[in-house]
């Protein structure tokens, strides 16, 4: 009976860093427990988790270390979500090839010679761009007399695709691009568009006609096929966020405790962590944009937008790469052998209040996460 209680306490006490404190707490908890108790109370559980996670960070007098840990946890949570989200995309189905692509092209543009290649990588980064986008296959045809009647042509294509099992999500004139080029509209350009989904695929069909310009140059009829997000991406992203945040907290704690009482190491680590956090502030802005997007009402007329983590590359890859290097530095400083600093232990109480060690830990975590994300080919 006491064994059950003791086992449950031991499990809870894993929130504390390894060391004699776990045993000390266990003895106190068992002394306090009324006979016959089998489980920790809710209040005890919350109290032990809270103080245990704080104890992981070391430096009992410092508040800065907590701030660092929170920032690092949020940042690594973002990176974890990005990595898991990207990983889940690997389960997306391939774009149509062979017979499937042929029947799709025939339904969209019957009897016309279609140009464009089948297939595309999951994500592609256009030349000169830094942010990756969903990979898509583009097909187009030479405009004909039939496509010049853009609306009738578009509606006929819509009906054929609907008959082929596609679900039409939205259609119309400047529906998808409500504020499309007003000058083109002045010139007499008219667009008919719709987008549709089926079996993990999304397609956009566009046919346009410009009355005042030579139609051979201005008119356009094209079909863009891309994948829709696999169902796993949401839950995988959430799981990645939790794991990343936990990793960030524990890493910060490890670095903080390893550098506690080492003034120079603390300063180096906190400075590097702060710099790395700064460089990764971009992801936080992205996170904010993601939350805004999630909070927005469901708008079925909006086609799938690029994944939330692409903004990380808004300013190129240098910032995340620099943050990763700083993280490695922080981890290296923290991992430095302590043999000769241990001797100063009796004076530990006089240890500087510097919070920076926490920063170091945070940077390290960020670096590891950044490397993981890159390794998974987020920027591919």
């Amino acid at each position: 009976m006491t064994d059950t209680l003791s086992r449950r306490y031991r499990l809870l006490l894993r929130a504390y860093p390894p060391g004699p404190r776990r045993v000390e707490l266990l003895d106190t908890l068992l002394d306090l427990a009324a006979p016959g108790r089998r489980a920790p109370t809710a209040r005890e559980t919350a109290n032990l988790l809270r103080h245990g996670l704080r104890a992981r960070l070391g430096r009992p007098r410092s508040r800065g270390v907590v701030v660092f840990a929170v920032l690092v946890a949020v940042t690594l949570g973002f990176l974890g979500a990005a990595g898991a989200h990207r990983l889940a995309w690997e389960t997306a189905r391939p774009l149509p090839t062979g017979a499937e692509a042929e029947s799709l092209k025939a339904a969209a543009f019957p009897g016309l010679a279609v140009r464009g290649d089948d297939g595309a990588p999951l994500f592609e980064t256009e030349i000169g761009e830094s942010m990756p986008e969903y990979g898509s296959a583009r097909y187009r045809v030479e405009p004909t007399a039939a496509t010049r009647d853009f609306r009738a042509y578009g509606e006929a294509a819509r009906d054929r695709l609907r008959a082929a099992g596609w679900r039409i999500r939205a259609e119309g004139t400047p529906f998808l691009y409500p504020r499309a080029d007003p000058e083109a509209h002045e010139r007499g350009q008219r667009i008919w568009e719709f987008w549709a989904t089926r079996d993990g695929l999304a397609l956009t069909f566009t046919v346009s006609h410009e009355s005042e310009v030579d139609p051979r140059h201005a008119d356009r009829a094209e079909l863009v096929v891309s994948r829709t997000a696999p169902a796993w991406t949401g839950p995988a992203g959430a799981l990645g966020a939790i794991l990343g945040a936990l990793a960030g907290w524990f890493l910060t704690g490890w670095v903080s405790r390893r550098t506690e009482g080492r003034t120079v190491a603390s300063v180096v680590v906190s400075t590097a962590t702060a710099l790395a956090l700064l460089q990764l502030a971009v992801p936080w802005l992205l996170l904010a944009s993601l939350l805004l997007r999630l909070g927005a009402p469901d708008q079925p007329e909006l086609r799938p937008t690029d994944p939330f983590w692409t903004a990380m590359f808004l300013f190129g890859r240098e910032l995340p790469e620099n943050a990763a290097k700083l993280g490695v530095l922080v981890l290296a400083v923290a991992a430095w052998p302590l043999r000769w600093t241990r001797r100063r232990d009796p004076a530990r109480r006089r240890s500087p209040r510097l919070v920076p060690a926490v920063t170091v830990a945070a940077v390290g975590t960020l670096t590891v996460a950044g490397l993981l994300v890159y390794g998974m080919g987020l920027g591919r």
Partner: protein
Amino acid sequence: MREPTFWILTALATEPRHGYGVIQEAARLSDDQVRLQPGTLYAALDRLDAEGLVEVDRDETVDGRNRRYYRLTDDGARALEAETERLRHSADAARSQLAARRRFGLGPTAARQGT
């Protein structure tokens, strides 16, 4: 100074105690009003140790279990004294205000007299 800190220093004022001893003594001194959570207690002890107000007294083995005793330092005694003075001052201020309230015939005492 937060209340758990105040009671931990108070419990350690007369003799060194281990964690369980501090919790029991704080409960006794406060007529069971204060029940320190072990997590809160040890977090506070760590902080007080870092601040030099409390320090480890000794380790004892009882029934094969290790017990670590903590004691109040001179700095800790001074901090507790300053806090006690502050609390006394606060209580005095409130007491004199309440006395004035009664003198002016306000409050529950006056209402009872009116009926």
